[in-house]
């Protein structure tokens, strides 16, 4: 393989195909024309032409999140690169492996304020895991392979490779992926056995334990989720998952208490608050999960399993930190648990479960049903029912609809739920769904959206139609930026400043204008038919579900409050005003 002489642009494509890349999401421009020329002359790598570079990154994220592979993006210099920044930041926050190739002006023009020049490595330094500017053709093959290695190794993340145009034209010697060994980057994957022993001792002694899994479980591969489930069942301890972790443990299993955090379930949050042992796996104690940090699970010992040492002891003090790959750590714990025939205090565990059952009885996701207006929760429940037995993948935008989707759509396995957790990027869902549909051409891919979010990347309907990707966009249309409106109701005296969209497009006509199918439900009686039709159509569909405009998302931990101070419904809002301290929190 090595020794082959190629032009820089050909090397880029060769490196992609040697890295097992079969699809690239991109948008051409002056600086990357040589790569597009090289793409044109081959069949190994497929290119999906998006309509905006932000969408290219989100599509690659969706693809990466559902396959476990590295998602690849190709954009031009200047605006191409700056448009990609939101997507890169999103991928960094959610630890999604992405390689983003950006064009750059030729090396001799760098720094001259040339046409479509931007300091891409400077701009993307804080929003990538790592980035490279290729200054010599001799470095190109190594950097390409290193980029993939860095993106997928350890805690995954986005890597930018900035490619000046003269490098793409230059000729050099290509070398394959095997030839590249990174100088220094080797994250620890095998856990320290002493820590495993400490963790096992705590696990055996626990009276009120809980497992808390996050997106890292999914990043660690399917086996990690399986081992997590085995360990939860072997111990008979309860478990909860973060927004990013949904699917890592089957939602139908009685050990699952639902999602935790700001809009998590009453039982999950109370169990987190009252537990005496918390085992966090691939989760990062985000403020959306912990609520008020000083009141977070005050009486518990905490074990934290993470591949990234900087996640440990960042927000919350940890008693037993275990650095390593989740699958390897869980395997060691499971083996240790079985070998030691540890006998936890069954009586204590029984009483712990009975407390959990009491919390469960609150039925915290209950909402006021209506025959007059479609409740958004009801719409998702019906969608969930209608998609049973189908090979279904869900993406979301950001806001109330996202939280309702997380609460009411149940996931039995990983890789089926794609959402923007850390950055909270409106406009994520549609392009992400595009990437998921590319990965699973026969799958049923649904973007559960809000009418505000969807407009942020609506142009990708055009891409969906071009590639005949039958993504379904299920809009819960309440004409408001619902989560903004909910916070204004809670915190700002109901002054709905700029959260109402006074001129929305006709989504049915909009879908048709793009070449897709538009459907609308305004009455409860129409909902099931619209869902049925949406699922039956083999084209991109926008289903405009006109829902209750004033429904709020509950349960809710108001900002600045603790896990055991949840609002369960509108009746609680007035009773528990948000503290001044909480007001300033996001």
């Amino acid at each position: 393989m090595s020794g082959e002489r190629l032009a820089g642009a050909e090397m880029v494509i060769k490196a992609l195909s040697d890295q097992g890349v079969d699809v690239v999401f991109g948008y051409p421009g002056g600086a990357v024309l040589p790569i597009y020329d090289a793409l044109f002359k081959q069949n190994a790598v497929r290119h999906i032409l998006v309509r905006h570079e932000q969408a290219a990154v989100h599509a690659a994220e969706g693809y990466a999140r559902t396959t476990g592979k590295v998602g690849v993006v190709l954009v031009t210099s200047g605006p191409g690169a700056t448009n990609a920044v939101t997507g890169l930041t999103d991928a960094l926050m959610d630890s999604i492996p992405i390689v983003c190739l950006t064009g750059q002006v030729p090396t001799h023009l760098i720094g001259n304020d040339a046409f479509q020049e931007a300091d891409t490595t400077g701009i993307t330094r804080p929003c990538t895991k790592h980035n490279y500017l290729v200054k010599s053709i001799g470095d190109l093959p190594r950097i390409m392979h290193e980029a993939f290695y860095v993106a997928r190794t350890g805690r995954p993340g986005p890597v930018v490779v900035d490619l000046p145009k003269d490098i793409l034209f230059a000729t050099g010697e290509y070398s394959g992926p095997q030839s590249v060994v990174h100088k220094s980057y080797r994250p620890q994957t095998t856990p320290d056995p002493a820590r495993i022993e400490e963790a096992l001792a705590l696990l055996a002694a626990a009276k009120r334990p809980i497992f808390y899994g996050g997106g890292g479980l999914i990043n660690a591969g399917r086996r990690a989720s399986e081992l997590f489930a085995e360990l939860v069942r072997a111990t008979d301890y309860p478990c909860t998952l973060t927004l990013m972790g949904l699917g890592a443990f089957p939602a139908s299993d009685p050990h699952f208490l639902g999602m935790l955090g700001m809009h998590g379930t009453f039982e999950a949050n109370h169990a987190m608050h009252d537990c005496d042992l918390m085992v966090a796996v691939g989760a990062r104690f985000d403020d959306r999960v912990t609520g008020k940090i000083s009141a977070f699970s005050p009486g518990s010992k905490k074990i934290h399993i993470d591949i990234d040492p900087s996640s440990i002891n960042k927000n919350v003090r940890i008693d037993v930190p275990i650095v390593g790959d989740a699958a390897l750590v869980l395997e060691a714990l499971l083996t240790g648990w079985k070998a030691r025939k540890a006998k936890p205090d069954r009586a204590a565990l029984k009483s712990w479960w009975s407390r959990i059952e009491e919390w469960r009885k609150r039925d915290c996701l209950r909402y006021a049903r209506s025959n007059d207006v479609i409740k958004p929760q009801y719409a998702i429940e019906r969608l969930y029912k209608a998609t049973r037995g189908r090979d279904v993948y869900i993406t979301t935008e950001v806001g109330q609809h996202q939280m309702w989707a997380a609460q009411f759509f149940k996931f039995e396995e990983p890789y089926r739920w794609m959402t923007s957790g850390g950055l909270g990027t409106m406009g994520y869902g549609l392009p992400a769904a595009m990437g998921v549909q590319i990965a699973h051409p026969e799958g049923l891919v649904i973007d559960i959206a809000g009418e505000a979010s969807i407009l942020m990347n609506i142009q990708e309907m055009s891409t969906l139609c071009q590639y005949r990707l039958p993504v379904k966009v299920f809009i819960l249309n309440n004409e408001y930026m619902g989560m903004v409106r909910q916070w204004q109701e809670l915190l700002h005296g109901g002054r709905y400043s700029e959260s109402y969209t006074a001129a929305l497009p006709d989504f049915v006509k909009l879908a048709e204008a793009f070449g897709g199918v538009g459907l609308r439900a305004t009455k409860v009686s129409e909902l099931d038919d619209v869902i049925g039709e949406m699922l039956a159509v083999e084209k991109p569909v926008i289903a405009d579900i006109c829902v209750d405009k004033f429904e709020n998302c509950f349960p809710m931990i108001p900002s600045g409050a603790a896990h055991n101070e949840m609002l369960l419904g509108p009746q609680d809002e007035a009773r528990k005003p948000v503290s001044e301290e909480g007001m300033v929190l996001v």
Partner: protein
Amino acid sequence: MTEPVERHTIAVLVDNEPGILARVIGLFSGRGYNIESLTVAETDRANNLSRITIVTSGTSMIIEQIKAQLLRLVPVHRVRDLTIEGPHVERELALIKMASTGPARVESLRLADIFRAKVVDATTESFVFELTGSTEKLNAFITLMEPLGLADVSRTGVVAISRGPGSF
């Protein structure tokens, strides 16, 4: 129940490549960590490595975060917290310009002698002193110079190395 703030000297071994300093500084500014001083220079030409010495302060949890975050940067090879890893030597160099005549000029020269500062430039109305030592020693000397016609100060920031035979 506020935790005490500690001052730590951290040595970081990094690939000597463009942007590495920006990465380190960006990490500190982006995450709101404190930099008291930072020095950097290539120290191993054969392996293309640079050594960065950072003096920072924070609670023990923040210091632990800083080290973990530094180690997360891909071109970082090693991070050592000299403050907790045992005895080490810290030195800083300062160039101190005095513009004075008469008794003040004589007094500054006399004090420089006591502090073992070297005169590296002299005119009839100025001196430049070179002084090496701990940060505290440099601070003390500069304070003494202030009323005597202190005109300019340039300091390197702290460089540090562990005592004994162990290497990085």
